[in-house]
């Protein structure tokens, strides 16, 4: 695979992950458990959508077919989305929102830290830009992991349940795609295996501090295809562009 094609795929995966997570978080607008948390979650949504915009714009440029970040977001079908399966999982309750976010925050902090050193100038710039945002996110979510884990019996039960349910989606997030090998060899993208090792150490540190048990790895990994949750989300997200093609504000 040509380097540009591989990098296009890579940016699509990271861009889609941010887009879908940002959209999921935007669903929490006016539904936060308290005003400050509502503002925090929508701030997160904005950061992720901003990161998606930058990554998908770059992906479109690499692809060279003239697709903009909007074309990529609104005019692709579900099977063309490359986002981590973890981020499409629904906002079941506040514990799920925090657990999902925490697992992604640790990953993104490690990813962006390493991405700053990319030999690709655009990726390096994005890495240092995004890292600061993700650091703020992780500070917030790890605080919540602790408060929920060490809070009441009810909050402990719920955060443990959320971590148990979401854990099965983490191997997919942590494993490298076939096209990444040559990009890593050229110093363009971080080594997925290194991130996976650091990720586990950092996640376990926060879990144990919060009195939350690390779940067993799933005996049968979940299906590789997207869930119905994503189908429904895209139906809503893409509705306007699909119904009124090329509609503009």
């Amino acid at each position, binding site marked *: 695979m040509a380097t540009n094609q591989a990098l296009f795929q890579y940016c699509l995966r990271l861009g889609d992950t941010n887009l879908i997570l940002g959209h999921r978080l935007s669903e929490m607008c006016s539904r936060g458990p308290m005003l*400050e948390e509502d503002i*925090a979650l929508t701030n997160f949504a*904005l950061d992720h959508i*901003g990161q998606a*915009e930058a990554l998908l714009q770059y992906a479109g440029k690499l692809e060279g077919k003239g697709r903009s970040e909007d074309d990529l977001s609104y005019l692709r079908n579900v099977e063309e989305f490359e986002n981590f399966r973890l981020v499409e999982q629904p906002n079941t309750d506040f514990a799920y929102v925090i657990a999902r976010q925490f697992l992604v925050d640790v990953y993104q902090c490690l990813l962006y830290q390493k991405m700053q050193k990319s030999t690709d100038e655009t990726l*390096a710039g994005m890495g240092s*830009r995004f890292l600061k*945002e993700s*650091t*703020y996110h992780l500070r917030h979510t790890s605080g919540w992991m602790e408060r929920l884990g060490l809070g009441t019996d009810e909050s402990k039960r719920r955060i443990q349940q959320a971590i148990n349910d979401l854990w099965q989606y983490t191997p997919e997030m942590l494993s490298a795609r076939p096209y990444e090998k040559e990009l890593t060899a050229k110093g363009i993208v971080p080594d997925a295996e290194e991130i996976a090792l650091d990720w586990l150490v950092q996640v376990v540190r926060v879990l144990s501090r919060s009195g939350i048990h690390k779940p067993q790895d799933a005996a049968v990994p979940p299906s590789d295809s997207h869930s119905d949750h994503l189908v429904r989300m895209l139906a809503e997200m893409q509705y306007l562009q699909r119904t009124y093609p090329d509609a503009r504000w």
Partner: protein
Amino acid sequence: MVTTLSGIEELVWERLSLIPDPEIPVISIVELGIVRNVQYDGETLNIVVTPTYTGCPAMHLFVAEIKAAMHDQGFDHLNITTVYSPAWTTDLIAPEAMQKLKKYGIAPPVKEISQDDPFAPLPVIPCPRCGSEHTSMVSQFGATACKSLYTCNDCKEPFEYFKHF
């Protein structure tokens, strides 16, 4: 009358420094440090900007305002490019602008102990009104992506803090 290309570029910088930040009108987009470069080749005006926060909705407004202002100046061939590298940081905010922020009631950014470590303790943010260091964070996230909410335990006033970035 300005005839040299660099003279024209200087005028463009001057004009850009009149465009206020839409969220914090006391400082301009030049003081904020988002305009990276201005270059005029006699025909096309090239302006390079860098986003503050990637998802900052004000960014689209900055670009629209730059376009309108340059159009008013008679530049028909305008090219605005966004770059991510090197990334914007609050260190790019002009020192005078830091004072303006404080006067406006927003605590200016304070260098953090470790920027990349989410578990590092947060620095003390002095109250922009009474100067007290006896303040507490109410919410890490505020009305805009760049600010946190604080309250002063001495003068009891709530205030916004421009996050170090």
